[in-house]
């Protein structure tokens, strides 16, 4: 009996309060459920990135090259010289705290190192130590610390707890873009082979076969043919999309998630139906490509060079096929890359024409240089000109709200077009509270390559602020469907809803369009694209 602890001892083991110490002294503990698995060395090797190796974040030894500190120091230096913005972001933060409580990961996890200011400070402290006079002389007094193995682990852990959503940046009085700090940190990790597999393998696949899953051209076409069969069953109409058609007017590119993952697949069926309608009614000539079969660009979570490489194949394919311009599907970071980086990386795309809708004559001035138009913009324009024959009552069983996907919202300022489309194809729509939508939208918690299975706790805590706002409209208005225009959202949000707000489904906007679209020569529609009965058709 003497071995048993006394009641007081037992209680003292239940540590209720966290240690109160300075952040520099708070050790990092890499917790299961909060990190993604290490990159498969084969994927790293395939894209010729340095130091492919087998390692495990939970291990003491990360098996780094001997001179890893030197490599990172040099890499840091090169990036400070190359990117003026990075240098500024390292220097100008006054730690006012405006961003501190704006990050979904801080709000959800309650971990202060997820405050954007502190997350950036993790890297800034190394910057001060290595590159500023004050840091070199005063050390810790000036907020500087050397890059030890412990510090590296901390950097790695927290910069893979940022989805590069940029919500914090809109609150920063200096306009510091924390997402770009994260991009730089991840570039540095890649110099010593420390990527995560959910990014490295999709990048390798995309580089090799054109899409994240590494699906080859014939299989990609097969998948679309399955959808064509399903659509024929639902509408009585056989859609016949073009594949790799040379001389087509428009090349359509969407994330491969739409082709392979539910419920994005229904959005993909929506694209097929919409293009069929436009071909029949107005002769629109759109082609899909089985080579540029991915809009998503996981290269942007790896390095600038990788982002450029993956982005370039879309334009190479547009050139090869000789199309006039590119139409882009419902994707997230594809649009950030196009809108913010493409033009200086691979642009201007002079060989393409300035996009004009052949149906309405609308010039898409905003896409003058990139030559790439967003499908929601294109569809909103069609609706505005009365070019679509729609029956919104087919979506009457749904009460919708709209999640502004971070990248189209904050990365390109697209707020109204998707809402305009939804409100014209459905009768029941309610927005979430103002501080959770439009430019202040909360991230799904799974962006920037963090949509893995092993980091489920991270994803669910990061998604809490978004889910909390959905819960509000679910309880107040009976919202049962969350519409969005990003493939990561469509993959991640169903799980998020299942945990926080059961009873709310997830859809793409074009799926809603296709449900409402009356096709020429269609049979009586009794089900929606998911095979569920349309309102009033429950007994059919």
């Amino acid at each position, binding site marked *: 009996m003497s071995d048993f602890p006394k009641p007081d001892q037992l209680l003292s083991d*239940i*540590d*209720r*309060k*966290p240690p*109160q110490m300075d952040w520099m002294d708070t050790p990092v503990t890499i*917790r299961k*459920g909060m990190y993604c698995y290490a990159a498969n060395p084969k994927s790293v090797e395939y894209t010729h990135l340095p130091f492919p190796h087998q390692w495990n974040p939970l291990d003491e030894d990360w098996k780094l090259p001997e001179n890893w500190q030197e490599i990172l120091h040099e890499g840091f230096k090169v990036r400070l010289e190359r990117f003026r913005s990075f240098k500024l972001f390292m220097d100008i933060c006054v730690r006012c705290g405006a961003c*501190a*409580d704006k990050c979904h990961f*801080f*709000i*959800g*996890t*309650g*971990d*202060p190192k997820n*405050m954007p200011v502190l997350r950036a400070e993790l890297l800034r402290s190394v910057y001060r130590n290595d590159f500023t006079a004050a840091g070199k002389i005063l050390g810790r007094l000036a907020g500087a610390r050397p890059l030890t193995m412990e510090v590296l682990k901390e950097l790695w852990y927290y910069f893979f707890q940022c989805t590069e959503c940029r919500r914090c940046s809109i609150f920063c009085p200096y306009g510091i873009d924390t997402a770009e700090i994260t991009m730089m940190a991840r570039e540095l990790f890649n110099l010593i082979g420390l990527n995560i597999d959910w990014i490295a393998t999709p990048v390798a696949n995309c580089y090799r076969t054109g899409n994240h899953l590494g699906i080859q051209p014939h*299989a990609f076409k*097969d*998948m679309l043919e*399955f959808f064509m069969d399903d659509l024929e069953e639902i509408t009585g109409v056989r859609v016949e999309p073009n594949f790799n058609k040379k001389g087509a007017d428009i090349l359509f590119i969407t994330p491969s998630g739409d082709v*392979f*993952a*539910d419920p994005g*697949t229904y959005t993909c069926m929506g694209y097929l139906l919409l293009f069929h309608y436009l071909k029949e009614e107005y002769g629109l000539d759109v082609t899909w490509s089985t080579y540029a079969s991915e809009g998503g660009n996981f290269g942007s979570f790896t390095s600038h060079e990788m982002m450029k490489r993956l982005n370039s194949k879309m334009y190479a394919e547009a050139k090869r096929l000789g199309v006039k311009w590119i139409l882009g599907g419902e994707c997230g970071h594809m649009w950030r890359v196009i809108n913010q980086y493409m033009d200086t990386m691979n642009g201007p795309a002079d060989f393409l024409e300035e996009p004009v809708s052949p149906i309405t004559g609308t010039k898409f001035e905003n896409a003058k240089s990139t030559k790439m138009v967003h499908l929601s913009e294109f569809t909103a324009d069609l609706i505005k000109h009365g070019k679509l024959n729609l029956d919104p009552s087919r979506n009457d069983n749904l009460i919708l709200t709209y999640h502004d996907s971070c990248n189209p919202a904050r990365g390109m300022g697209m707020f109204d077009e998707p809402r305009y489309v939804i409100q014209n194809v459905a009768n029941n729509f309610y927005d979430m*509270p103002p*501080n*959770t939508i439009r430019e202040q939208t909360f991230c799904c918690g799974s962006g920037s390559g963090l949509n893995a*299975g*092993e980091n*489920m*706790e991270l994803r*669910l*805590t990061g998604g*809490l*602020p978004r889910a*909390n*706002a959905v819960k*509000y409209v679910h309880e107040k208005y009976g919202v049962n469907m969350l519409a969005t225009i990003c493939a990561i959202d469509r993959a991640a949000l169903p*799980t998020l809803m*299942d*945990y*926080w707000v059961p009873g709310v489904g997830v859809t793409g906007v074009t799926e809603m369009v296709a449900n409402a679209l009356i096709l020429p020569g269609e049979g009586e529609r009794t089900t929606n694209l998911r095979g569920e009965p349309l309102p009033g058709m429950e007994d059919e």
Partner: protein
Amino acid sequence: MKLDKLLSQHKNVLIKRWFDEVVRTYPVDTASFLKQQKDPFANPVGNTTLKGLEALFDVLITGMDREAVNSFLDPIIRIRALQDFTPSHATSFILFLKQAIRETLVKEFHDPDVITAFMNFESRIDDLCLMAFDIYVKCREKIYQLQANEMRNTTFSAFQRAGLVKDVPDEDVPGLRLLTPPKNGICNV
């Protein structure tokens, strides 16, 4: 009865003390955010916790309807089951109410009736803590289930569309009968 009256009279102070103790389970910078930010959409953790504690306090006085208690407890535990807490750490905040009452009503404990009533009240708090643990376990199970579902859906749907999944009637599966437990519980094999 006297205790109930005292608890109702000191409700605001007690809930404040209870809430303060709960937020002190978070790091100090986080705790001040959880207390100060009143917007429920900017601070879902703090607001969900406070709203839940208020409702639970009322339920403890008026009586325990299991379903109602679950509906107030669940949102708090659902959050704490994901955060960086041990199981005991995630659920023990219920017990903090005992200390809050002891400290607030210390002068009233000379009355034997109040002491007896308080002992009963403490048992209710203990019950609440046990219910919290049940919810905690359900939340953890849900997290594992979500992980498994995602993995299954990723591969299953792709295989199904590619025509690689075939429904096979149970009787055609060799050995399946042997693996299925007989209804009477007696295994004949």
